[in-house]
């Protein structure tokens, strides 16, 4: 804060933007190609893995998170963490409910309709 209004923000070069852009295009081609291969249960893992890699590139470089203040990085980590809580607890609930009870309810709904 000593030299006031000194310009210290990090400017990402167009070269790096272009490289990220190319990486995202490669990722898109890769995920489309992978969708037509049979990897058994790993198809979804691969698709989401590539999507997460692409999203990470966008956040780090296009959104400048890598060069941003620690405070911003903390906010991003918090977002992912809260999202994980929401997904994990909701899915855990659905996975551990008495499945027969759920089925009975849905069947009654179908037959009474």
């Amino acid at each position, binding site marked *: *804060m000593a030299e*006031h*209004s*000194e*310009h*210290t*923000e990090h*400017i*990402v*070069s*167009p070269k790096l*933007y*272009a490289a*990220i*852009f190319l990486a*995202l*295009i490669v990722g*898109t081609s890769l*995920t*489309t190609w992978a*969708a*037509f*291969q*049979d*990897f058994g249960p790993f*198809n*979804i893992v691969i*698709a*989401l893995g*590539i*999507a997460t890699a*692409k*999203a990470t590139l*966008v*956040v780090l*470089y*296009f*959104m*400048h998170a890598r060069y*941003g*203040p620690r*405070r*911003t990085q903390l*906010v*991003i980590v*918090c*977002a*992912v963490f*809260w*999202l994980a809580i*929401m*997904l994990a607890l*909701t*899915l855990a609930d*659905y996975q551990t409910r008495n499945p027969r009870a759920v089925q009975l309810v849905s069947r009654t709904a*179908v037959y009474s309709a």
Partner: protein
Amino acid sequence: MHRTGELYGQFQTLEQQKESSTLGMWIFLVTEVLFFGGMFCTYTINRHEYFAAFGIGSNTLDITLGTANTIVLIMSSFTMAMAVWTAQTGKKKLVPLFLILTLGLGTVFLGIKGVEYKQKFDHHLIPGRSFDVWYQVDNAKPAAEREKRQLDTEREELHKATLTDPDIQSHAQLYFSLYFAMTGLHALHMIVGAGLLLWLLKESLRGRFTPQYNTPVENIGLYWHFVDIVWIYLFPLLYLIDRHK
């Protein structure tokens, strides 16, 4: 967002002022992550429950249009990033150019999305009374041999799926309800983004964005990239989940 580049009383430096503004934008984006997260959660639960019906629904989507749209959106993110760069480095004449490119690519995305929606209307895949997952297989008039074979595969897939899920009609509607809700909400964000870009364009033509003051370009850029990220996840989840069969 403050209207001018001058230093406001509550801040010590311009840099602190900009960081506060950007932090506010990021916190807004966190709420958006959780907003879309709820929809992704609903999708995951239902896809797990009605696996066959979701596969059938997903395979009716046009993969060429979907991939093209993904590339268009990534390109628009790149031009948006370039708009931020031109503002940061003081290339005042180039800022509007990159904003127009971003706006144009965003419009192309929405146009392709419109074509896809129209296709779903024609194929009776809008949830409701006239929904019929068999409509396309029964009524399409294939012109080429390749299309005929494609339809035969689809018919076979539908028969197979009906064996595992007798109520495929209603469960496929669930897929399309989620498809329209998620892509519709995403498209709505794009439309809001296009409005913001128009405003940025107007201001940039007045030469307002400089290396000292470019917070609006940066923050609307963050929003635009976020919308891109949502699509990066929507694309594999909606279009690609059951293609390998």
